[in-house]
């Protein structure tokens, strides 16, 4: 079976990235996946995030999902929580914007300011 062999290769690839992972408690990305988020495209945003992480071999970022936060008109909403810094909440995130957040914030530490709707608990 083709997929069995594929799975073995995937396992080796995943192991290689796990080996270099630092266990310092890396950033956390939280995607709002309530009905409003899903209807606005959150699933494809999440898929883009995971795809980008797999391609770049990023494994110290935790991805999680949450329900509706009451910001339905700004969905898809994505929050990036970095230890020791105020969290950054992005609104109207598309898969392309998500890829930029990975490259600019998660990899290079630069916030993608034009999509920020809140920093810490302060709304913009």
């Amino acid at each position, binding site marked *: 079976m083709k*997929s069995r062999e*594929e*799975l073995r290769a*995937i*396992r080796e*690839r*995943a*192991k290689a*990235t*796990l080996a270099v992972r630092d266990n310092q408690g890396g950033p956390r990305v939280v995607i709002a*996946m*309530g*009905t*409003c988020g*899903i*209807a606005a495209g959150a*699933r*494809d945003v*999440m*898929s883009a995030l*995971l*795809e980008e*992480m*797999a391609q770049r071999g*990023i*494994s110290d970022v935790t*991805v*999680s*999902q949450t*329900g*509706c*936060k*009451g910001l*339905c008109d700004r969905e898809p909403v994505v929050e990036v929580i970095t230890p020791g810094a105020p969290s950054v909440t992005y609104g109207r995130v598309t898969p392309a914007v998500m890829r930029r957040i990975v490259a600019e914030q998660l990899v290079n530490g630069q916030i993608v300011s034009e999509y920020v709707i809140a920093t810490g608990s302060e709304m913009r």
Partner: protein
Amino acid sequence: MREVSLHVLDLARNSIEAGASNVRVTVEESGPEDRLMVRVEDDGRGMDAGTLERASDPFFTTRTTRRQGMGLSLFRSVCERCEGGMTLTSEPGGGTSVSGWMRLSHLDRPPLGDVGAVVQALACEWPMVRARYEHRVDDRRFVLDLGELQAELGDVPVSSPVVLSWIAEHVREQVACLGSTA
């Protein structure tokens, strides 16, 4: 919602919000019966009769962040619009099961869409949530059980990005192999 698979994700998110640790998703396409059926079953906290009765009312929700609860009512209306229906069964402490069906060939039926990305989103919740995905097209069947997948992966978690990426692709490929027309 542009795709039936987005409703499936929405229903599965309800299961997770209800504290489920096992979520089973089934999609069945039947050509002879001209029917598309989707079912989401969980072992979450369930609902009592009163909550169950109001669950697909758009102006009822248990959440506090907004006052509407659109998920089930949207799903029910798409099923009904496509000459199908929806059933909801639940018991406090006994989990919940939602089934919806529609006419496969109905002109208003949204495409099934990207089920691979849905299974991926559920796999992301591993190990808190153990999902199982089953897809049938007539008498052909594909099953991806994340518990079984984890056993094969050994010490590499199902929720590693490389594995999640493979899961989405694998599900898309296998569903296409079944000859899915939904």
